C-alpha cells in the first residue's frame, strides 16, 4: 500500500499507470551496476520513479573529470567514494525508497552475493567483460538485464529477457577492446533513460520491450535506429545444452 506522501509524490505516474502500477514499482528491487555516467541517470530516474529498493555498486572514487556526465556526484564529492555520494543523492531525491549503496568491485566472486534479492539488473558498466558477467548472472537467475552503452555522441541499448530473447552474448559475441572513451553526459541521459523506461515497462507488464532489437542512438545526426537481433543457437552463454555439457559453472542450471 502507498502512504499519503507517496500518493502525492507519484500523482503524475498514478495518472499514467494507476496505484497498482506504482505499487509494482515499489515492490521491485533493482541492481544498478556502476555509479558512473549511465549509472547516474539510471539510478536517479529509478529513485525518482519509486523503485522500492535500489542497490548500486561502484568501487571508484569521484574524480573531477567524472563530473561532466556523472550527475550523481558534485564538486564537493571529489575524492569521496561514488557509492557514498550516490547514496546521499538518491536518498535525497526520494526518502521513501531503500537505497543500498555498496563500495565494491563487480566480479565473478562478488556478483552472486551482490545480486541477492534483486529482480532486475541495470547495466551501467563501462566494459564488456563485466557486462558478460552480468549477462550470465541474469540468465542463471532468470531475471532481466537492461543493457546500455555509450561512446561520445553514440549509444546503444537493448533489453534481455532470459529464455525469451537474444542475450548480450548472442548480440555481441566478442568484446571490443578496452579503451578510454569520450563521453558526453547527455548521451548517458538518452541511453540511461531508455533503460529506465524499459525497466518500468517490464515491471508494469506494459508496452513492447526492446527485446531482440538493438537500439542505436546517433546524437551527432540526431538519429535513432534499430537493428533486429536473433537468439544464437550456438551462443555459449544462453544455449543450455552447450553450457551444461561444457561449463561447470552451469551445472546447477536446470535443463528444460
Amino acid at each position: 500500500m502507498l502512504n499519503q506522501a507517496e500518493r502525492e509524490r507519484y500523482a503524475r505516474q498514478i495518472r499514467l499507470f494507476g496505484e497498482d502500477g506504482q505499487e509494482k514499482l515499489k515492490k521491485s528491487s533493482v541492481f544498478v551496476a556502476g555509479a558512473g555516467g549511465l549509472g547516474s541517470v539510471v539510478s536517479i530516474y529509478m529513485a525518482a520513479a519509486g523503485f522500492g529498493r535500489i542497490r548500486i555498486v561502484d568501487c571508484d572514487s569521484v574524480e573531477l573529470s567524472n563530473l561532466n556526465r556523472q550527475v550523481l556526484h558534485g564538486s564537493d564529492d571529489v575524492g569521496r567514494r561514488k557509492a557514498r555520494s550516490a547514496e546521499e543523492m538518491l536518498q535525497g531525491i526520494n526518502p521513501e525508497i531503500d537505497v543500498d549503496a555498496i563500495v565494491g568491485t563487480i566480479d565473478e566472486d562478488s556478483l552472486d552475493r551482490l545480486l541477492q534479492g534483486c529482480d532486475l539488473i541495470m547495466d551501467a558498466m563501462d566494459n564488456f567483460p563485466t557486462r558478460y558477467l552480468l549477462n550470465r548472472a541474469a540468465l542463471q537467475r532468470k531475471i532481466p538485464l537492461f543493457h546500455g552503452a555509450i561512446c561520445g555522441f553514440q549509444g546503444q541499448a537493448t533489453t534481455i529477457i532470459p529464455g525469451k530473447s537474444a542475450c548480450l552474448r548472442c548480440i555481441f559475441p566478442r568484446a571490443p577492446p578496452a579503451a578510454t572513451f569520450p563521453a558526453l553526459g547527455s548521451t548517458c541521459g538518452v541511453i540511461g533513460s531508455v533503460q529506465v523506461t524499459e525497466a518500468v515497462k517490464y515491471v508494469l507488464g506494459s508496452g513492447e520491450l526492446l527485446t531482440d532489437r538493438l537500439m542505436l542512438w546517433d546524437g551527432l545526426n540526431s538519429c535513432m535506429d534499430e537493428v533486429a537481433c536473433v537468439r544464437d543457437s550456438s551462443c555459449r552463454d544462453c544455449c543450455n545444452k552447450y553450457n551444461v555439457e561444457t561449463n561447470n559453472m552451469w551445472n546447477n542450471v536446470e535443463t528444460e
Partner: protein
Amino acid sequence: MKIKVMAFASFREILGKELNLDIVGEATAAGVLAILASRNKRFKEAAFEESGWLRDYVQIMINRKRIDPRQDLSTKLNDGDELVIFPPVAGG
C-alpha cells in the same frame, strides 16, 4: 547491382551515414567491405586487423539481420540489399 551500406557508431564518423554502391556482377559482404576499405584508409584501419582479417567484434547485418563474419561474409548479396556495419560502443 545496388547495395546500400549504413554505418553506425564510430564507423559513421568515417564512412558517413549511408553509402550507395553500384557493383558490377556478383556481390558478397566480403566484397563490399573490400570496396569500402580500398576507398577509405581510415575505415580499413578501424575495421581490419593488420593481418587483413575483419576485427572480430565488428557487427555486420544484412537486411537488418546479424551475420557471423567468421562464416557468412561470402554470402551473396542481392540487388537492393542493405548492409549495416558498426562496432559496439562500450562506455558507460
